[in-house]
Structures are given as structure tokens and as C-alpha cells.
């Protein structure tokens, strides 16, 4: 019999599953609501127009997103829903970092911390830089 995993007790697995479920639910709710609203507001849009234009471009900056959300633009809420979906794994890794650190596992905590830094760099530094 293997010894019990003290770093990831059953409660840790449950909490991580909850983080994923909440992130997924919020993201899908935002995407579904914004998509239905977009369809209602733009009933004559064709697939060619939808594929050829990208309504996300004006909401990629924080100020643009905030303005879009405040004005109730469906494109801004679609952007927010996608952002929540992208951010959910970061929260999951962050919870792994918490458990490794709490369990005194410095090597795995360091590995996980480096992963978090790289994920944030990609989203907030490299992506905007190469745009």
C-alpha cells in the first residue's frame, strides 16, 4: 500500500475540481449570454461577415474592455468570457503552488511558480508585444 499523499489530500482534489467548475460555468455563462445577445442584435449577419471581421480587437486593451463592458457591448462580454476560460488554468496552477508550498515541497513549489510567471508573461507581455 502506497502512503497517503499529504500534499494533495482528498480535500485538495475537491477544491481544485470546484475551481475548474466555477471557472468553466462563469466562462460558458458569459459566452452563451453574450452570443445570444449578439445574435439578437445582429440578426442579418452572415457567416462570411462573422468570419471576416473580428469584434474582439477593440476590446483587447483593459480600457477598451472596460468601456465595452460598461456600454453593454456583447463583443466585450464575449472577450471577458474567453478571458475567464484562459485564466482558469492559471488559478488551477496557483492552487497547486499553494499546496506544494504548504506541504514544504520547495522543488515542486518553485517549478509551479515558474509556470505561473510564464503563463502571465504570455498573456500580458508577449501577446500584446507581438500583436
Amino acid at each position, binding site marked *: 500500500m502506497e502512503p497517503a499523499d499529504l500534499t494533495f489530500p482528498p480535500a485538495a482534489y475537491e477544491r481544485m475540481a470546484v475551481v475548474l467548475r466555477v471557472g468553466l460555468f462563469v466562462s460558458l455563462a458569459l459566452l452563451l449570454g453574450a452570443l445570444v445577445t449578439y445574435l439578437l442584435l445582429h440578426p442579418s449577419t452572415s457567416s462570411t461577415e462573422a468570419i471576416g471581421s473580428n469584434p474582439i480587437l477593440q476590446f483587447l486593451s483593459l480600457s477598451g474592455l472596460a468601456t465595452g463592458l460598461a456600454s453593454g457591448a456583447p463583443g466585450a462580454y464575449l472577450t471577458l468570457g474567453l478571458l475567464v476560460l484562459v485564466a482558469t488554468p492559471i488559478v488551477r496552477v496557483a492552487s497547486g503552488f499553494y499546496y506544494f508550498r504548504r506541504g514544504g515541497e520547495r522543488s515542486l513549489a518553485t517549478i509551479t511558480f515558474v*509556470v505561473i510567471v510564464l*503563463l502571465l508573461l504570455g498573456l500580458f507581455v508577449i501577446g500584446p508585444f507581438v500583436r
Partner: protein
Amino acid sequence: MAVPSVDLGLLVVLLILLSVAAGLVGSLVGMGGGVVVIPALVVLFGVPIPEAIGTGAITILATSTTTGAAYIRDRLTDLRMGMFLEIATVPGAVIGATATVFLTRASLTDALLVALGVVLLAIIPSSLARRGQEDPTPRPPDARSRALRLSGRFVDRATGKAVSYHAADTSPALGVSFGAGIVSGMFGIGGGVFKVFALERYMGVPMKVATATSNFMIGVTACAGAGILFAAGYVNPLIAAPVALGTAVGAYVGSQVLPGLRNRTIRWIFIPVVAALAIETILRGVGLP
């Protein structure tokens, strides 16, 4: 073969149906569903390749997030091994996604697509040779595996037996995982093929745990690539939103099916999907689709 121009509402319905199938396949084989969605978007709907890749990354996130909750709850996911291998896959994904942005501008992706297809085809003989094997032959853990306590135990619901395992050759697994990260970031296909390969072939992890852990890992890896592609404007929400919704449904159904399947059943799903992906990738590389 392409779908003619239709109303946006019908396009959304078609994309949801497509992505339900993609999510189901993706969750069953630990590959994320992008392998189905990306070529379908390009071939059937005329979506530009960079945006198809960006949508593929979103597909992977939806699959991994949906199945991750179920697999983590069932204790099939090995969080220690997953986190360990992410130190290789995430830098690879950052490099891969950044390369995609520049290669797309320079129109130099065709040769890389062909190379990817060849590598995928090279994996298949190894999988076929061991297709009747339920659990990997135990091998001694290496020094890194012992230091990081890369071992685990789960109850196989198909056989009712408790299975213990530990990681063996971690160095080649890290190398393969770095390659998986580059593939994931560059092509938006998840790289789960390589991750399952690294976990099962090199580290000696049972197929079922390898698949569940791969599903966990591809979400984190895709996050690295998707973050860059998203911030660079390569994700069209009118395409990505219905795809994410459909993929989540398909992946949820897949996650309910996986724990009751025998390992050789999963392998028989895995092998043809890899073969199809490889051929499809080569064809795209030489400009045939």
C-alpha cells in the same frame, strides 16, 4: 466541400455540433479536440489558419477544464507529474505560439506542418506494438522521480483493482514534453499525443492516468499558447464562443465514459485519431486539403 455563406445563427449551430464531436473525441484520447476543430474550421468554414489555431487553443482549454474537474475528482489525474512536466511544456508553448505569429506573417508554416505529421506517424508503431497491454511493465524510478516523489495509486474502475505506479525515465519525458509544448503553442492542437506518449512510454504511467493527466496538462499548456494568440488578436469570439460551448458538452460526456473503459479500448481510439491527425497535417502542409 466548404459550407456556403449562411446566417450567423446557423453557423453557430453548425459550430456547436462540430465541437460537441470534437470535445468527445478529445477528452477520450487526451488530445483536446483541436485536431478535429482546426482542419474543419479551415476546410469547411474558410476560417483563416491563424484564427483556426487560436480557436483550437480555446477548444483545448474548454476540454481540459471540463474533463479536469471530473478526472481530478476521480483521482485519475496525477497532479504531481502533471505539474512537474509543465516546467517543460509551458516554455515550449510560449516559444511555439510566438513562432506562429511570426511564421504566419512570413508564410513559412507549411514545412513545419509536414514535419509534425511525420513525427506523429512515427509514434504509431510504438503504440501498436503494445496495444494488448493493460498496464505498463514496472521500471525502477530514477533519482529525480524519487526526490520529487513522483508516484501514485488509483483504483481502476474497469477491473476493480488498485494500481500503484511511479515515474521512471523523467529526462526524456521532459524533452518530449518540451516538444509537446512547442507543438501546442504553434498549432493549437494540444500536444496531448506527445504528453500521453511521454507519460506512458517513458515514465511508465498507466494509460488511464496518462490520459487524464494529459487532459490536465494540455489546459495549462494551451493557456500559455492561447494567452499569446488571444492577446495578439488571433481569436475570433464569434467562432470561438460556440466552439467552446460545444466542446464543453462533448468533453463532459467523454469524461463520464472514460473511467469505465478498459485501457486497450482507449488505445484503439487513440491510434486512429493520431493517424488521421498525422495524414491531415501532412496534407495541409503540402497544400492538398
